[in-house]
């Protein structure tokens, strides 16, 4: 009986998640859930690259590429976003290939700097190329309803889309981690020369991880664009929102694991909203002061993130249900 407690809890949790939109009519609560699911997806996508020890602070570029390609195909050529997905994936693939050149030659902080510079270049081009992207004036997605146009009156459809995206991203992140690619990435991260000597093609492995991560981020970007229906470079290419936030979620949740980033996203996203409307209104900027302090304290006192706090519980839970401790 004990063995199945995990399954029962899991099933219950899934059921609860599916019923939420029916119980909560208010779109504000749905918005928080949807935003959290988007961030779970984004952090999981970012995490795929982190397995290989490469920390990108430029995922906003792929997020925005996906958003703009999908939106422009729809607004200018009337192509439904579902088909636009292929365009977004292709464009982010090209972006990924460009970023793969620095990836091969650089590691650590220098690669991170290259990703920041890459995003900055794309952001400034998006602002300057007004007749394509409408620049900072913003690109509005027209309000014509329908599943084909990814535009809805109520918040529920996007809740389910975001939930599906989150589950898909985490599944992909988990699949990559326990696949040949995952083992090779982790080996390359801990000792690239030893890995290379044992037959791991370091460059190929890292570039594959980058491309998977980039295309997944672009897909999330496309759905986010249709969810937020106003596209402007300052938001989509924002360093804080889509480059730094996934990295923060992963760090605070637990780096390099599958579930760490998920916990990080689930913890940080509602906290960010909560801090803003409680503290933000009391004193300008107070919420960000608390945010900064949380970050410094996390890195200082529990670098393993929340997951490192949960693992003792996990181990005790496993012993309780008499699990022999498989090595996952």
């Amino acid at each position, binding site marked *: 009986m004990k063995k199945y407690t*995990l*399954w029962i*809890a*899991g*099933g*219950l*949790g*899934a059921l*609860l*998640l599916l019923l*939420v939109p029916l119980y909560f009519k*208010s*779109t*504000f*609560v749905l*918005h*928080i*859930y949807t*935003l*959290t699911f988007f961030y779970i997806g984004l952090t999981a996508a970012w995490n795929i690259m982190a397995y290989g020890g490469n920390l990108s602070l430029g995922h906003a570029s792929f997020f925005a590429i996906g958003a703009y390609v999908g939106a422009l195909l729809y607004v200018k050529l009337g192509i439904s976003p579902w088909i636009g997905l292929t365009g977004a994936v292709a464009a982010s693939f090209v972006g990924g290939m460009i970023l793969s050149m620095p990836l091969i030659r650089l590691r650590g902080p220098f690669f991170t700097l290259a990703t920041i510079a890459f995003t900055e270049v794309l952001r*400034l081009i998006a*602002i*300057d190329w*007004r007749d394509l992207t409408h*620049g*900072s*004036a*913003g690109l*509005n997605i027209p*309000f014509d309803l329908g599943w084909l146009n990814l535009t809805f*009156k109520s918040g529920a459809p996007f809740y389910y889309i975001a939930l599906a995206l989150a*589950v898909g991203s*985490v599944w992909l992140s988990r699949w990559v981690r326990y696949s040949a690619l995952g083992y090779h990435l982790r080996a390359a991260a801990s000792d690239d020369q030893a890995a290379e000597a044992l037959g791991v093609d370091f460059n190929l492995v890292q570039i594959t991880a980058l491309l998977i991560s980039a295309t997944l981020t672009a897909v999330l970007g496309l759905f986010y664009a249709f969810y*937020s*229906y*106003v596209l*402007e470079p*300052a*938001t989509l290419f*924002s360093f804080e*929102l889509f480059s730094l936030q996934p990295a923060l979620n992963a760090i605070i949740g637990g780096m390099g694991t599958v*579930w760490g980033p*998920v*916990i990080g996203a*689930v*913890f940080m996203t*509602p*906290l960010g*909203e*909560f801090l*803003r*409307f*409680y503290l*933000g*209104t009391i004193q*300008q*900027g107070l*919420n*960000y002061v608390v945010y900064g302090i949380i970050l410094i304290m996390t890195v200082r006192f529990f670098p393993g993130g929340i997951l490192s706090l949960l693992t003792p519980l996990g181990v005790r839970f496993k012993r309780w249900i008499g699990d022999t401790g498989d090595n996952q």
Partner: protein
Amino acid sequence: MKKLAMLAAACICLMQISVTGVFAEEKTIQIGALYPISGNLALMGEESWRGAEIARILRNRQGGVAGKQIVFRQGDASTNSAARSETERMIEQDKVKAILGTYASSRCMVASEVAARKDIFYFELGAIANAITQRGYKTVWRTCPTSLDFCRGQVNFIINWLAPTLGKKANEIKVGIAHEDGEYGTSVANSFATLAKKTGLQIVSVEAYSNTSNDLSSVIFRLRKAAPDIVVAVSSSQDAILLSRQANELGLNIPIMGTGGGHSFQSFADGLGPQANGVLNVDFTQYHVNTKYTPGLEEFVKLYQETFKHFPRAGSSLANFMGANVIFNILEKTGGSFDPEKIRKVAMAMDIQPGHTATGWGVKFDKEGQNVRAECLVTQWRDGKLVTVWPKKFAVMEPILVK
């Protein structure tokens, strides 16, 4: 898969705690106040909020609206995604039936879209992008001028004062535009271009620069090459000072006309000192104006200094003060009810002639909810004060041309 589900159950209860802060419902009029009070627009966001706040305090002292006190539900639109979630929170959690705000056009576009989709009234008091009232939403109203009105003020001034002073005809005047590449700068630059075509003004150069840039020498060089008669500048905040300083440093002796934003700040004159003299500016009504046509302005400034301990920092608070009063008057006539039809009827019936509100604007809404009697006045920095110089009716000083 089992771990994900267990985690999901945990996250639901976590979210329950964080979002159900529902406020008690008393006998008051709840209005949402959405401004960017943190992030890079914090300064102007807070200044704009203060205008609406003063209007609320004043109205509550006079008995509120239809016997009920007005309460603002605060929202911080620091980013677009924040603007969206705050609007939804105010509508669902705080049960507000109308929202005013915003100062920044992109925040207003997102917030008013969310409100429109829920048939909640959205009164824009300070953002100027034309598109806000061009989306055909019945519930979006705007009391302040649009970027087109800004440019109309500039073009009229250039044609009716600058041209004769320089002894040139309208189509001989050469105009250079230097604007920050954000949504504020782009929308004004586009509006100016359309108006210039109609009136024959020659636009000799349009220079867009990134609003995070800390050096504008290249903009100055390109303007020097184009050698316009006047430079129309659209600056968000510190780039206003930067532009004038580097113009002086690099010998660009051409008059500059700002478009609100950074040029309306008191810190513009404090920082530039004597160099600021003569810099023209088009914006909402400022404080040194012929008060015969701006009833209620002194009262506003007195209460502002009483509440915030210093003189208002920019004209945007005055504009928000005037707009908030218009909303309170509408609600007074509908007896405090937010019924869409009642509000629409009362608002459309409003017909106040220019010179009878605190900003000197009239109030007449067109079918798209835009106040067509909101106009921009031309002001000029003279010895650290922004004085109104055009049109004559509102002017307290004659404009002078400083090279």
